C-alpha cells in the first residue's frame, strides 16, 4: 500500500463528495465479493422483516471501504486476518486444561461448526441466557476441558472465533430472534436507538440515518457484524464485535459497556438480525 497514493485517492474522493454528495453517499455499486476466485458472498440483500422498514437494503461494511481494502478480502493470501485464523486452528487442535482435551476432541474438524457463526448469538442450552460465541467457547473450556476461560477479546479468543467464522463463510446470517430470545432482541433494539454520552449519539444516528455519509475521514457503514471478527487496518489485528461496540459507545463520550455484558450481547443479537440475509465473511477486512 502506497500511503501517498492512498491519500491522493482520499483527497479526490472528498473533492468528488463536495461536488456531488449524493453519488458518493451510496455504498460502492457493481462490486462482487468473490473469495479465492470461487466463493461468491452476499454483500447486499433486501432488508429482513426484523428491520420493520427502517432500511430497504442491507449492505456489508465492505461496500463502504476503498477498493484496496476490498481486494484484500478477496484472497486468503492477501487477507491479513488469515494469519490469525491459522493460529486459531492450531489452538483448536491443541490440548489444554486438566481433562486432556482440545476443541477437536469433541468437535472434530472445525467445519463441523460451519452453521455456528451465522446463528450467533443464541440462547444457551438451558435457555436462560443469551450467549455469544465467546460464551460457548469459554463454557467448553471451563466445563468440558478443565481449562481457564479466555478473556473476551484476547488473541486466543479472537483467533478461535475467526477460525469458526471462516468455517462458516458463505452461510447466511440468520440468528433466532423469537421464543426466549425475543426479550433480548427487544432490549438490543432499545439500546440501538438510545442516544448515549455527551455527544448524544445512538447507533441509528450514524448507521441507519447516515450510512454512506462522512464524519471527517470516516465513511459511515450500516455497522453490520457479518464480517466479524474483523481484521482492522487501524490496529492490525482481529477485533471482536463487542470490542467494536465498546469503541463506538466510548466515542459518543459515554461511559461504555463491558465486553460480554448483557447489554452488548443483546445489542449483538439485534445488530446481527439487522444483517440477516448477508453472508458470513469469516474475517472481514476493515479500516
Amino acid at each position: 500500500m502506497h500511503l501517498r497514493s492512498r491519500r491522493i485517492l482520499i483527497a479526490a474522493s472528498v473533492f468528488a463528495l463536495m461536488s456531488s454528495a449524493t453519488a458518493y453517499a451510496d455504498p460502492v455499486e457493481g462490486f462482487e465479493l468473490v473469495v479465492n476466485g470461487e466463493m461468491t458472498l452476499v454483500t447486499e440483500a433486501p432488508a429482513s422483516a426484523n428491520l420493520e422498514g427502517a432500511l430497504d437494503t442491507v449492505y456489508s461494511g465492505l461496500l463502504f471501504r476503498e477498493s484496496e481494502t476490498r481486494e484484500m478480502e478477496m484472497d486468503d493470501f492477501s487477507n491479513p486476518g488469515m494469519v490469525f485464523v491459522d493460529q486459531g486452528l492450531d489452538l483448536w487442535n491443541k490440548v489444554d486444561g486438566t481433562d486432556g482435551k482440545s476443541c477437536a476432541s469433541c468437535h472434530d474438524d472445525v467445519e463441523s461448526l460451519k452453521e455456528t457463526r451465522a446463528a450467533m448469538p443464541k440462547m444457551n442450552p438451558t435457555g436462560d441466557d443469551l450467549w455469544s460465541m465467546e460464551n460457548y467457547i469459554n463454557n467448553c473450556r471451563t466445563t468440558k476441558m478443565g481449562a481457564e476461560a479466555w478473556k473476551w477479546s484476547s488473541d486466543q479468543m479472537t483467533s478461535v472465533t475467526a477460525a469458526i467464522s471462516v468455517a462458516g463463510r458463505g452461510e447466511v446470517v440468520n440468528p433466532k430472534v423469537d421464543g426466549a430470545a425475543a426479550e433480548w432482541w427487544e432490549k438490543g433494539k432499545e439500546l440501538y436507538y438510545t442516544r448515549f454520552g455527551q455527544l448524544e449519539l445512538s447507533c441509528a444516528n450514524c448507521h441507519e440515518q447516515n450510512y454512506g455519509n462522512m464524519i471527517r475521514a470516516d465513511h459511515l457503514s450500516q455497522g453490520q457484524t457479518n464480517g466479524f471478527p474483523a481484521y482492522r487496518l487501524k490496529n492490525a489485528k482481529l477485533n471482536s464485535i463487542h470490542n467494536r461496540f465498546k469503541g463506538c459507545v466510548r466515542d459518543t463520550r459515554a461511559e461504555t459497556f463491558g465486553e460480554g455484558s448483557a447489554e452488548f450481547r443483546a445489542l449483538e443479537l439485534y445488530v446481527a438480525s439487522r444483517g440477516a440475509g448477508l453472508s458470513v465473511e469469516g474475517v472481514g477486512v476493515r479500516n
Partner: protein
Amino acid sequence: MKSQLKLAIALAAFAAQPSFAEVTPNMVAFADGAVAQSHTGVAGNAADGAKVASTRSMGNCVACHAIAALPDAKFQGNVGPALDGVGSRWSEAELRGIVSNAKMMFDGTVMPSFYKTEGYTRLGDAYTGKAPKGDVPPILSAQQIEDVVAYLLTLKE
C-alpha cells in the same frame, strides 16, 4: 517597584470585576430555538471561532459540516449541511441557539449540544469510555460558543 505592584494588583482586580455574569448552560434562555443574549457579554472572536470549528479536540464542526472557507481542515464531513453562507441565512441569536443546543431548534437532530450539562444517558469522561469523576463541563465554554457564532456570522453568501 512597590507602586508598580500596587498598580498591577489594582488593574487585575478591575479586570476581574464581572461586568456581566456568565450565562451557565442551564440558564440559557431559548426562544424558538434562538438565544438573544450573549453567554459572556464579551464579543466573540471570529478567528478563535474558526480554530474551534476546525480542531478535533474542540468543536470539530467540520467533522459533520463542510466549510469551504477552511480548506486547511481536511476531510470535511457531510452528515450535516454545509455551513457556507450560514451568516446570511441565520441571525446571531439563531446561530447561538443552534450551536449551544440545536435540539431546541430542530427536534431530534443528530447534532450534539455544545453548551449543555444535563439530561445525558451514561455521560462519560470525554473519550475514555469511563464514568466521570466529577462534574463534566459542556463540550465548549461560553466564550468558545461566542467565538464560533462570531465566525459563522462571517460566512456570508
